C-alpha cells in the first residue's frame, strides 16, 4: 500500500483507549511536519477536554487523553474541527538557535563519504549544511534527540548498513533527508559529519531539553582547536 506524502484530510487512528493518532502522511517532508506542528499549536491554544499530552512526529500527532474525561469519538470530533479550521502558525515560540559544530576529522568521520556521495567537496558540504535553515520536526528515540528537516537534498546518503556500536554525545549526523544530534552517547547508524559541544538534554534543567518541536536551527562551523 502507498501513501501520498501529505494527505489533504488527515486520518484519525486509535492507539487503543490511550490516544488518537492524527496522521497527515507517511513521508519526510517539511510541509507535512508544519501541518503536524500547526495542529499541536491549535490544540494547545484551545485544548479539548481530557487531552493530557501531545507528541508531534515527522508525519503525525499523537494525542493522549484521559478516558475518565473524554473518549475516542468525542476527541476525534474535536480534532476534526481543529484540523478543518483556518491554518495556524506553528506555536510554542519556535525559537531560533545557533549550534556550533566542529565538522569533519575525528568529530565527523563520515563527512568525506557524505561529500563524495553528493559530488561535492567537504568544504562545500559544510557550507550547504550551515547555509540551510533546519527545523525541529520531532524529538524522539533518546531524550532530547532532535529530528531536523531542511537538509539540502544533495546530502541524502542513507544510513550505514551496520550501525556503529557507539556514537559520541553531541554527534551531528545526517541520513534519510534529515539531520539529528545525539544528546548522549548511543549506538547509531546515521552518517556523522561533526560534533557540537552544546548540551542538548539535562534532566536537572527546566526545560530539560534545549530544543523543542517547532524550533529553528542554524549550524555554525567552528574549529574545535581554535
Amino acid at each position, binding site marked *: *500500500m*502507498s501513501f501520498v506524502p501529505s494527505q489533504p484530510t488527515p486520518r484519525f*487512528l*486509535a492507539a487503543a*483507549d490511550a490516544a488518537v493518532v492524527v496522521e497527515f502522511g507517511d513521508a519526510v517532508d517539511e510541509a507535512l511536519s508544519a501541518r503536524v506542528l500547526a495542529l499541536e499549536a491549535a490544540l494547545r491554544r484551545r485544548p479539548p477536554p481530557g487531552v493530557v499530552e501531545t507528541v508531534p*512526529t515527522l508525519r503525525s500527532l499523537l494525542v493522549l487523553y484521559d478516558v475518565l474525561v473524554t473518549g475516542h469519538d468525542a476527541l476525534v470530533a474535536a480534532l476534526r474541527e481543529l484540523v478543518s479550521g483556518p491554518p495556524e502558525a506553528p506555536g510554542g515560540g519556535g525559537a531560533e538557535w545557533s549550534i556550533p559544530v566542529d565538522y569533519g576529522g575525528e568529530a565527523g568521520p563520515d563527512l568525506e563519504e557524505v561529500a563524495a556521495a553528493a559530488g561535492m567537496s567537504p568544504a562545500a558540504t559544510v557550507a550547504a549544511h550551515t547555509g540551510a535553515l533546519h527545523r525541529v520536526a520531532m524529538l524522539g528515540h533518546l*531524550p532530547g534527540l532532535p529530528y531536523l528537516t531542511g537538509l539540502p537534498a544533495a546530502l541524502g546518503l542513507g544510513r550505514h548498513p551496520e550501525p556503529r556500536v557507539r556514537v559520541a554525545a553531541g554527534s551531528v549526523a545526517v541520513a534519510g533527508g534529515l539531520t539529528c544530534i545525539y544528546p548522549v552517547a548511543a549506538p547509531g547508524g546515521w552518517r556523522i559529519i561533526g560534533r557540537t559541544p552544546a548540551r542538548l538534554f539535562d534532566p536537572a534543567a527546566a526545560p530539560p531539553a534545549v530544543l523543542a518541536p517547532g524550533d529553528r536551527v542554524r549550524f555554525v562551523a567552528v574549529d574545535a582547536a581554535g
Partner: protein
Amino acid sequence: MDALRVLAPGLLTSVQDVGRPGLRRLGVPAGGAADPPTLRLANLLAGNPQGAAALEVTHGGPTLEVLAESVRVALAGECAIGIQDAGGHRGEAAAWSSLTLRRGDRLRLGRVASGLRAYLAVAGGIAVAPVLGSAATDLRGGWGGLRGRALRAGDLLPLASDRPAGGGETRLDPPPWWTRDGAVRAVPGPQDGHFTAAALELLATAQWTVTPSSDRTGLRLDGPELEHRGAAEIVSDACLPGSIQVPGSRRPIVLLADGGTTGGYPKIATVASADLGALGRLRPGARLRFELVDVATAERLRRELEAWFAAVARGGTGTPS
C-alpha cells in the same frame, strides 16, 4: 531520615512511582512501574496516595533492615515475606497486606512465586528527590530513583516521614484484575493497514512466548511470523506502552513503561491500558494470547479498573487483619 538499609538488593529492585507524564514530546518516556495497578494497590494498602514511590521487585526480593523506630510496609504481588526481629525470632507475613516493623527487624522478600514483579510500599513513601517531577528510576537515562540505578547492598532508603505507624493493618484478597489469566486485550492499529489480513488473524489466534531478552523497555515475543503488506519500516511515529511493533523479523515487540517515545516500525495493535499491568506480570517463558477488541471496549475496561480503585480507596482496603 533513613528508614531502611538494603542488605541484599535482589535481582533487580528499583524505586518506581506512576512515572513522569508530559515529557514524551521531548523524547522522555513516562517510565514508572511496569505493572502500574499493582504499585497503586501496594500504596493503598500502606495508606499512601496511589502514585507514591515504592520498590519494584523483579523475580526475587531484597532483604531490608529497619533503621527507624517503626515502619509500616505493604506488599502487593505474589511473593513470600520472611521477618526476623532483632532477637532472632523468625516469622512470615502475608502478601496483599500491610505490616508494621520495628527497629532492627529484617524483612526478606523471597522469590516472586507468580507473575514477575511485586511492589513494596512504605507508609509515607520513599523520599528520593524527584527528577523531572517523578521519583521513578529511569535505568536507561540513569536518573530518578536512587542515583538513577537499581538498588545495591548498603543503600539507604529515605522515608518521607518518621511518624510511627498508627491505626490497624490492612489486608485484601488478590484483586480480580490480578488473578485474571485470560487473553491480553488489544485494539488493532494505528498501523494495522501495513499488515496482511492473515497477520491480524494470527496475532489474535497464536500462542506467544515471552523471550528472555524482554525487560522494562518491552516484551519480545516468539511465535509465528506476522507478514507486512509493504515495507517493514515507516517514517517514525509515536509509540506508547502497549504498542505492538513488528520489525523486519516479523516477530512482535510489545513496549512497556520504558519503551521509546517514537519508532520506525509499524504497530499492528495497541494493548488496552487496563491490561498494561498484565503485560508487566509476564516473565520470560510465559505464554500469552491476544484478544482483539474495539476502542469502546478498551475504554470500558479502563473505566472499570478505575472504578475498582475508587471503590477500594473509598471503602478502606478491606477487612482488618
